[in-house]
């Protein structure tokens, strides 16, 4: 019964992963810790395996829809481990509270940018909100601003 509930939650996690492009670990981990009583570290490690497989299938599906820029993905994916090391070092040497507030501000900034996009009417001539599948990314609008550029 517990396994059936965990499976149902993981189906939901997979759906969220496909819908918004995150790994799904935000649901996989609690499905294992709360429903299956796994330890936190074991659940997180197992979740990573699931994320790898789920993301692989999600990438395959999105590729068929023309929604993957593999070159950019490769660059981001291969450089992330560098960031993980930086993050772990920072976590051990900087005040956690300051890090949390700093990243929370970054997330709120991103949320504001997305919300502005949501509530800005489309230019009728551009069709910007729904480009044809496989159209690729629009050209970058000048130099990036905000935290990524710093």
């Amino acid at each position, binding site marked *: 019964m517990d*396994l059936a509930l965990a499976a149902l939650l993981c189906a939901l996690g*997979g759906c969220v992963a*496909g819908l918004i492009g995150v790994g799904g670990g935000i649901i*996989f981990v609690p499905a294992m810790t709360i429903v299956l009583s796994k330890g936190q570290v074991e659940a997180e490690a197992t979740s990573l395996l699931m994320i790898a497989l789920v993301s692989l*299938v999600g990438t395959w599906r999105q590729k068929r829809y023309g929604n993957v820029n593999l070159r950019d993905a490769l660059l*981001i994916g291969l450089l992330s481990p560098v*960031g993980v090391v930086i993050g772990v070092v920072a976590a051990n040497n900087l005040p956690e509270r300051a890090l949390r507030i700093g990243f929370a501000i970054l997330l709120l900034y991103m949320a504001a940018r997305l919300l502005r*996009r949501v509530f800005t009417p489309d230019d009728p001539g551009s069709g910007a909100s729904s*480009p044809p599948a496989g159209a690729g990314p629009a050209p970058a609008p000048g130099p990036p601003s905000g935290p990524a550029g710093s």
Partner: protein
Amino acid sequence: MGSRRIWSLAAVGTLAGAFSGLFGVGGGTVIVPMLIALFAYGERLATGTSLAAIVIIAVLAAALHGGIYGKVDLDTGLILTVPAIAGVIFGTALQQRIPEKAVSLIFSVLLIGVAIEMVVG
């Protein structure tokens, strides 16, 4: 690809990794909004590209956990992956049928929720 764009994408990857290393939250939480907000990606392209990047990140991290620390529960993971894969196939299909801006709206709510959790949690 211009060098400025390469460096900017490198910054996205590094920031996504740092976020994961610091807080254990997946890189997609950072990758998707940055691709949309800073690189003018459409929502569908951002989420698809994010999933492809996450494959690399998760494979490396899972190999580290499984290979060095032996913490991966292979049986449970593979059993639960079956419904999760059904979910991701449904989710990607559903995404093609909703307005792109709906994805941004859902993601905004997620970001605000995670930001609040980080501060008060």
